[in-house]
């Protein structure tokens, strides 16, 4: 967790116009301060007192509500603020019966409800004050903001970011438990285009993400991700028209099928050998074509079958068997077939 100390405005932003470059270095916490509005986190329940009330009323109110400052309003307009300091001054003068407007401060620093938290942070830092009244567009008093409100608001937003993925993960991991059948499986289908280097690997990326959401452990997701990625790149690089990838996920095993309609492989045994590659120079420049792909796959999966007919196409089947502690779908138990 990052430092959430907001007592000072981050000095690197002080007096600076936020350029694109600077914006690039803003962290998520700082980013949130630019997104969250003051009225989203301020306290709306206000404790106020009339300027005609007595200072002893102020003392009672502070004691009762455990607060160190009371806003003074007249016909819903903010006219001042009495703090403990004002109360002490009044006590020293022995004037508890004096009206509030004799001791309240009227030079008030306020915030706009429609501004972002960064404005509040700046004002806290500039004035050294710990709580500030918030006014709306019509200068009506609508709330009060403390440094604590700001920290709490940001923490809540961060938690929300974090929660979304957690919730998705939780739901997915219960998928296999929530649906009853004699044999439940989840099939993911992807179409891979020939020479689509722009999106190359996006199927593998989505498959890996799906496995993690289903509760697979990171080592397993990594093994499957690497194998599918090599297969996906082969469809992109070595085929006439691309091909398809289907992944069938069951609690006890993951089966991956990658197939295409040509050109096929003359000698699959030779193709499997580490170092064997027919990739062009252009492909090599992209970092592929080392002839390690099929060999890599064989090391990542438990079972692998490469079938091909020249002029017809290639089918690659990969299977990963899950041990009990690796099973996808949390807590799911099933007999292995």
């Amino acid at each position: 967790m990052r430092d959430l100390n907001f007592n000072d405005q981050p000095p690197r932003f002080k007096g600076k116009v936020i350029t694109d470059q600077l914006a690039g270095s803003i962290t998520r916490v700082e980013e949130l301060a630019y997104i969250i509005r003051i009225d989203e986190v301020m306290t709306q329940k206000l404790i106020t007192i009339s300027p005609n009330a007595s200072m002893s009323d102020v003392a009672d109110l502070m004691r009762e509500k455990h607060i160190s400052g009371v806003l003074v309003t007249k016909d819903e307009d903010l006219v001042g603020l009495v703090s403990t300091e004002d109360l002490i001054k009044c006590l020293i003068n022995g004037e508890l019966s004096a009206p509030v407007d004799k001791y309240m401060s009227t030079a008030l620093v306020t915030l706009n409800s429609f501004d972002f938290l960064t404005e509040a942070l700046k004002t806290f830092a500039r004035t050294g004050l710990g709580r500030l009244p918030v006014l709306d567009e019509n200068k009506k008093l609508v709330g009060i903001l403390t440094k604590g409100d700001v920290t709490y608001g940001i923490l809540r937003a961060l938690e929300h970011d974090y929660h979304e993925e957690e919730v998705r993960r939780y739901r997915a991991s219960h998928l296999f438990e929530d649906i009853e059948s004699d044999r439940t499986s989840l099939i993911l289908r992807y179409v891979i285009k020939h020479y689509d280097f722009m999106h190359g690997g996006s199927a593998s990326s989505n498959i890996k993400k799906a496995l993690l959401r289903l509760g697979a452990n990171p080592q397993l997701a990594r093994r499957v991700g690497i194998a599918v990625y090599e297969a996906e790149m082969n469809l992109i690089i070595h085929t006439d028209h691309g091909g398809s990838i289907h992944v069938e996920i069951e609690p006890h095993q993951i089966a991956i099928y990658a197939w295409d309609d040509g050109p096929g492989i003359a000698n699959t045994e030779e193709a499997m050998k580490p170092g064997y590659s027919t990739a062009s120079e252009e492909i090599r420049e992209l970092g592929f074509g080392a002839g390690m792909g099929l060999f890599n796959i064989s090391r990542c999966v438990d079972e692998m079958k490469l079938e091909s007919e020249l002029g017809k196409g290639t089918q690659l089947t990969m299977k990963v068997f899950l041990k009990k502690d690796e099973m996808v779908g949390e807590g799911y138990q099933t007999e292995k077939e």
Partner: protein
Amino acid sequence: MKISELIDQTQGKLLTRESCMDPDRMIKGGCSADLMSDVLAYIQPNAVLLTGLVNPQVVRTAQMADVAAIVFVRGKIPPAETIQLAEEVQIPLISSPFGMYELSGRLHQNGLPSLENAIED
């Protein structure tokens, strides 16, 4: 080693946005490679990848192999697609003025072991 220290050690420049990474992720070692299959075959999780390749596939490869950060050698700057993809998958990209040999030596000397072993069979 944290990413901030890696940037220091490589005298590098962070190319991705700071908000698009976990600043506390620990980098456990390093691996230098220009062949994607080598990376996939030999790198261990949580390594920094030093490479001269800048296309988006480097990021995909890194994502599959659980790479913690990518450093481009010899001041290379990747195209916008590469940076965008890296931000999406939360892998920080750094550009360092040093060559692969110099960079590997520096990082190794400063406590980053080689994470270039074969994957467990």
